[in-house]
C-alpha cells in the first residue's frame, strides 16, 4: 500500500461519495479537488458547476479561483451569474452542494462570516458568498473541513448557512425541503447526521486515526455511531489520479507565475 497524507485521504473520501449522475455545485479548494477526482476516477459523467457560471466544466487543472479561465474554456456553457443563482441553484437542479467554513457545529450549521460580535468582530471572515442558498437549495450538502477544536465548535459566532438548525425537524419548520448537510468529511473521519436528532456522529474513521484524536479535535461532546467503520484507504488508482491532478495544477500555476 502506498503512503498518503491525511489531506489526500480526506479528498478521496469526499470524492467517493459522488455518483456519476450527480450535479455538483463546487466550491474552491478541497471540494474542487474532490469533485474533479471523482470525475477522473469513478464518475466520468458527473456534472460540475461553479458559481461563476460555468456548467459542465472539465478542467484539466484545478482552478485557484472560482472563475479561472480553465473553467470557462472546458465548460459545456457559461451563463451569467444571475441566471446561475436563479435557474440553476434556486431552480433545484443541483444534487450535491459543497460547503466549508471557519466554524461548524454539531448540526452542520456553518459560520464563514465573523468570529466574535458581528458589529465589532474579532476576526472579519470573507463572508458567506453563495452558502446561505447553497445550503437550502441543493439536494444534499457535503462538508469537507480539517477537524480541530477551533473549527468544530459547540456554538457558532454567527450562522452563515443553515445545517440542521437546532436538530430534529428544524429544516422542515423553516419550510426547507432539501436534505441539508448529509456528510462531513475531515482529515480524521466521516460523520453523518443521526437520523432522528440530526446531530452529526462519526460513522467511519480513517486508517491510523483514533477515537481519542477525534474527540480531542471536536469542540462538542462528539458521538460515535453504534457501528463505526474503518474508512477504506486510498487505492493506488485514486492516489495516482489525485497526485497527477495536483501535479498538473502546480505546474500550470507555476508556469503562469
Amino acid at each position: 500500500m502506498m503512503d498518503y497524507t491525511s489531506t489526500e485521504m480526506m479528498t478521496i473520501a469526499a470524492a467517493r461519495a459522488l455518483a456519476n449522475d450527480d450535479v455538483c455545485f463546487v466550491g474552491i479548494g478541497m471540494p474542487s479537488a474532490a469533485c474533479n477526482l471523482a470525475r477522473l476516477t469513478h464518475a466520468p459523467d458527473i456534472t460540475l458547476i461553479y458559481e461563476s457560471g460555468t456548467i459542465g466544466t472539465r478542467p484539466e487543472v484545478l482552478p485557484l479561483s472560482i472563475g479561472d479561465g480553465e473553467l470557462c474554456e472546458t465548460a459545456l456553457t457559461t451563463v451569467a451569474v444571475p441566471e446561475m443563482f436563479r435557474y440553476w441553484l434556486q431552480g433545484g437542479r443541483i444534487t450535491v452542494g459543497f460547503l466549508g467554513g471557519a466554524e461548524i457545529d454539531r448540526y452542520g450549521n456553518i459560520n464563514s462570516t465573523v468570529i466574535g460580535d458581528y458589529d465589532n468582530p474579532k476576526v472579519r471572515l470573507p463572508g458567506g458568498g453563495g452558502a446561505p442558498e447553497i445550503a437550502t437549495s441543493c439536494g444534499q450538502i457535503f462538508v469537507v473541513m480539517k477537524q480541530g477544536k477551533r473549527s468544530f465548535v459547540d456554538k457558532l459566532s454567527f450562522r452563515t448557512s443553515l445545517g440542521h438548525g437546532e436538530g430534529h425537524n428544524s429544516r422542515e419548520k423553516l419550510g426547507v425541503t432539501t436534505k441539508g448537510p448529509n456528510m462531513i468529511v475531515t482529515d480524521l473521519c466521516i460523520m453523518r447526521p443521526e437520523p432522528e436528532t440530526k446531530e452529526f456522529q462519526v460513522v467511519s474513521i480513517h486508517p491510523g486515526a483514533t477515537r481519542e484524536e477525534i474527540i480531542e479535535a471536536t469542540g462538542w461532546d462528539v458521538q460515535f455511531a453504534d457501528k463505526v467503520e474503518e474508512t477504506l484507504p486510498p487505492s493506488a488508482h485514486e492516489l495516482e489520479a489525485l497526485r497527477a491532478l495536483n501535479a498538473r495544477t502546480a505546474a500550470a500555476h507555476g508556469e503562469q507565475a
Partner: protein
Amino acid sequence: MARIMTLKEAVAELVRDGDKVAMEGFTHLIPYAAGHEVIRQQRKGLTIIRMTPDILYDQLIGMGCVDKLVFSWGGNPGVGSLHRLRDAVEKQWPKPLALEEHSHAAMANAYEAGAAGLPCAIFRGYRGADLAKVNENIKSVTCPFTGEKLAAVPSIRPDVAIIHANRADRQGNVLIEGIVGVQKEAVLAAERSIVTVEEIVDDLAPPSPNSCVLPSWTVSAVVEVPGGAHPSYVQGRYPRDNAFYKAWDPIARDRDAFKAWMQENVMEKGPEAFAAYAGERA
C-alpha cells in the same frame, strides 16, 4: 451613445465623491486600471458595491476612498483574507468602514432587478441564516398564490458602474465574453457607466447572434486600456496572474508596505502601465 474617452477624462467626469460605485467582474474582467484611476483621482466617501470584492477593493479601502462596502464575499480567492478590508472593519484604519452584507444569490438578484428597473428582487433565500438579523435591507414578501414567504432585497442601482470588457467597436458597442458575471446587469442598473476594453476595433464581430453585447447607447464612456484587467484576466488574451494574487498577501498585511506599493504602482503610474500585461487576441 457612448463617448470614447481617456481613462482620466472618464473618471474625472463620471465618478464623483460620495457615489455608489459598482466595479464588477467575477474573477474574470475585473476593472483594475479604472479602479486605480479612481484611487489616483482621490475620490472620497464612496459606497462600493461588488459580489466578490478582491484586491482592487482592498486597495480602494486601504487608500481611504470608501465609506461603505456592499458585498457578499470579500477575500483573496484561493489565498485568504483581504487585510486592508479586515483592518478597516476590525481596527477602523484608515477610517471606519460600514458593511452591508448579502449572499451571492441576493446580490445577483438585486443587480438583475436593478437592470430590470424594479425596486426590489424576490428569491428563495436566507432561510435559517443569520444575515437577515444584521441587515435591515433583507425583508420578505408573501407569494399571493401559494402563501410562501420569499426573501426580498432592494435592487442595486449604482450611480456609476465600471467594468472591463473584451472589446468595443468605434461606435462604442461592447462585447463581453467568457465568464460574464453580473457586468451587463451592473451597467444597465447604473445611472452612468465606464467600460474599459482590451481594444477598440472596426467590427465588433460577436461570435453568436446571442452574444453578450451592451449597445453603445447604454454606456456612458468606452476607454481602450490594453491589459486593464490585470492581475485578473481576459479570456483568450492573458491568463489570471495567480502569482500576483499570492504575492499581494504579504504586501497587504502591513500598512506601510501597502502604502509604499500603492505609491509606486498606482499613484505614480497611469493606465498605460497595464499594456505590459496585455496579450494578443487568441
